[in-house]
């Protein structure tokens, strides 16, 4: 009887935990160090960089004297819902905590607010109107002398503010930001930390409502692509019980080819490798199969559409200029600063063209190969651009 093919243990698009999650201890260490200093954290990274997985790991493996809870907030429609959610989170966090202080706190809250039930789905309160914003300011100081530290992870916080602004609720957005800033600066709240996470830049959103000072006290932590060593560890984890065998030199080839080592894209390639090997029922992976896997992932090019989307949406006015740079870099294998400048003359951007180049470097599109020569940061992305824009006129 044919032996069952064991597939690779990837997880794409969703929270990775246990053997599917690559722990990067130095990020966890940095996080707890900053929280320990009393900082509130701004956790930023593009989508699919692994923020939610990191937060889940931080919550599930927090140090002894911490109580943590995570919540994705992206469906919050107004400020009342936000305060209600935060209020519920604090109670849920305390309710599942092992500390006596927390148990006492919950007992007081049950009586004070006529709470019928605290469960994973929320809190059931017996017919009583609660002004959540006010009550938040009342309950958090009760932790002041607690022997533990509460950390609330608010995922997609930047999206909430962005959506409120776009829905004509700018004042709601400002109220939330002012309230949270006030909490952060009150001595009574020093045992309480909020982590603000989001896949769009909170700084950009706040700039749009012209209140940058409202978040300038947050401590940013950014998720970077994997290092070579981390990528090796992730591959080993994913392949641990899988049927396919990827020799070291082939793994090396794969990493070199991908270059920009985001866990998401690494896993897409490994899934494609598994698929190709499954078809032939041959578990031994070669560089030729890696090439075919890259080709397959590229052909399903919607995987990379967001790289175009991000420029066309957030740099709408200058998309033609930016895209000309990228198309030339893709077709010619690079572009010089002189060639960029010539394009800038045509587009009337001679005063600011290097800002765009720096943005492209910052956001992982290009890198400087040698002085004033720019190439794609990832050969995979370059191949995508070639497929997306096959016709090129000098």
């Amino acid at each position, binding site marked *: 009887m044919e032996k069952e093919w064991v597939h690779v243990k990837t997880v794409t698009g969703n929270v990775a935990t246990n053997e599917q999650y690559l722990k990067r201890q130095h990020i966890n260490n940095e996080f707890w160090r900053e929280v320990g200093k009393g900082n509130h954290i701004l956790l930023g990274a593009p989508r699919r960089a692994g923020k939610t997985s990191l937060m889940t790991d931080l919550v599930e493996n927090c140090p002894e004297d911490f109580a943590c809870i995570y919540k994705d907030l992206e469906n919050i429609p107004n400020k009342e819902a936000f305060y209600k959610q935060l209020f519920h989170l604090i109670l849920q966090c305390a309710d599942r905590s092992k500390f006596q202080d927390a148990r006492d706190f919950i007992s007081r809250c049950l009586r004070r607010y006529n709470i019928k039930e605290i469960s994973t*789905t929320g809190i059931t309160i017996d017919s009583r109107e609660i002004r959540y914003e006010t009550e938040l300011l009342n309950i958090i100081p009760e932790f002041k002398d607690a022997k533990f530290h509460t950390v609330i992870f608010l995922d997609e916080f930047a999206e909430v503010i962005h959506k409120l602004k776009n829905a004509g609720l700018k004042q709601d957005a400002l109220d939330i930001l002012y309230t949270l800033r006030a909490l952060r600066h009150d001595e009574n709240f020093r045992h309480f930390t909020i982590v603000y996470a989001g896949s769009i830049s909170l700084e950009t959103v706040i700039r749009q409502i012209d209140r940058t000072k409202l978040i300038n006290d947050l401590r940013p932590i950014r998720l970077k692509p994997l290092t070579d060593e981390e990528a090796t560890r992730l591959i080993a984890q994913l392949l641990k019980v899988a049927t396919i065998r990827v020799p070291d030199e082939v793994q090396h080839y794969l990493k070199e080819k991908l270059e920009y080592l985001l866990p998401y894209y690494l896993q897409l390639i490994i899934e494609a490798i598994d698929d190709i090997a499954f078809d032939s029922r041959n578990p031994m992976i070669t560089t030729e199969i890696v090439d075919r896997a890259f080709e397959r992932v590229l052909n399903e090019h919607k995987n990379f559409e967001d790289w175009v989307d991000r420029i066309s949406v957030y740099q709408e006015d200058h998309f033609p200029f930016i895209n000309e740079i990228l198309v030339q870099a893709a077709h010619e294998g690079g572009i010089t600063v002189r060639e960029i400048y010539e394009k800038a003359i045509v587009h009337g951007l001679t005063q600011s063209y290097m800002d765009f180049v720096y943005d492209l470097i910052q956001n992982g599109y290009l890198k400087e190969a040698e002085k004033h020569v720019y190439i794609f940061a990832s050969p995979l992305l370059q191949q995508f651009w070639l497929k997306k824009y096959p016709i090129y006129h000098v």
Partner: protein
Amino acid sequence: MSNIPLFADLPLYQNANADSTGIKSTFIIRKYPYSVISQDLSLNPKNRSIQQYLLVGPRGCGKSTLLGRIQVKIDSDEELSRQYLVVKPAEEQANICRLFDLLEEILHDLESRGMEVKWPGEEDDPYEYTEALFAAVHVLLEKYDKMLVLLLDNMDRVFETVEADLSSLRAHLLNFRDIKIIGTGTRLTKHFYSYSQPFYCFFRVMYLEALTSAEAKELLFHWGEQYHLPAVKEFVEKKPGQLEMIRTLTDGLPRTLQLFVNLLLANDQGTGYDYMERIMDAITPLYQERLNQLPPAQRKIVLQMAFCWEAVGAKELAEVTRMDSRVVSAQMSQLIDKAVVEKIETSTKNHLYRLTDRFFNLWLIFTQGSPREKRRVKDLIVFLENFYDARENNDPACRHLNAGSEGVTLLQLLNQEQTRAVMDRFEDQEGGPKLKEEFLPIFYATELQLRGDTRTSAKMPPEIRQVVEDILGASNNK
């Protein structure tokens, strides 16, 4: 369906509704996605990572059958049915307008199985009501200690309908991790890949692609054996070229192969062209409805685009439709949104366009085209059939490719690396255009070999890409 008698055991539609034994015994293809998903269900305890899936493929490619097979897998496995509750809403979800409609349907389904549902009270605010229904789902799952597997056919359409509520859905999937969605769609809509959408790259997308030659043969052999149909087995063995031609031009869809088997069983003998004509005839009600649903201006554009066959620019399209180019552009945007048309981007503003469903394109030529347009298709059919028969017979020079025809000469020249000489013939003002029509795949193979990826090759109809690669492969091997 038309005048073709259908073999009762090979139902054409709603195959997923067959009984569990039927589904198990007829499940031959789509092994990879099935294997991945069933292993994921078996190995991943519910408190671990939860992978969500989207199965993408055209109508008739086996998506619903695959969902049905997954349902049977869970229902018939003691351990899996202990861990999971499967809900599979009706394939045509006409009553779903908001997310709460879907949640109500899920709760009704669970309640009908004797589970206790804590229905929320009346709530005017859609957000609050959706949240309350979600809470009811989570409470129920917690109470019965199960995870919900939602098998959602036509998820692309459902997401379009409940677009305003998608953030809520994502938030609950992430916050509670007790729902696994395995959905299907005919296309990857913006909801799944656009950076600004909640479900950006959230699902593992698995494409159900055209069946390969080997898969098509395996499927036909299986049907032949299972239903004791010797004619099917005989056809596969004796007419490989015809089978390959049919597979190529009908997008390699299992459903079309089913149609074809029914033709065989009706004792219809004929040429490859005859078979194709009858398959087109059988598929007419479906495609006619699709065509009729389009407003007149879009119908005209679609027809002309089909007749062009290759991808065309907006300017060229405005000429052949005799419509104002701005009107054409506006209509094209709508057709792209409906996924009837796809855009091939170039680095200039002059993008190319073609019909997304290639089998639909062929059907339009067959049923609505002029004699000249139909002749082009006939030429291609004859070419494909002969080319693949020759390949099957290990005849790389394709000597019996219309013996004595120009095609043999052209292929021989290509094999001898006389690419320029071949192109000269295609570019000849007098005979060139007719030659190109007659041997379109050879023209593209020549173009690719001579000039690489050009605008001309970007125009190539995708259905002939494989044969073009096969021609180039044979030429390079030589």
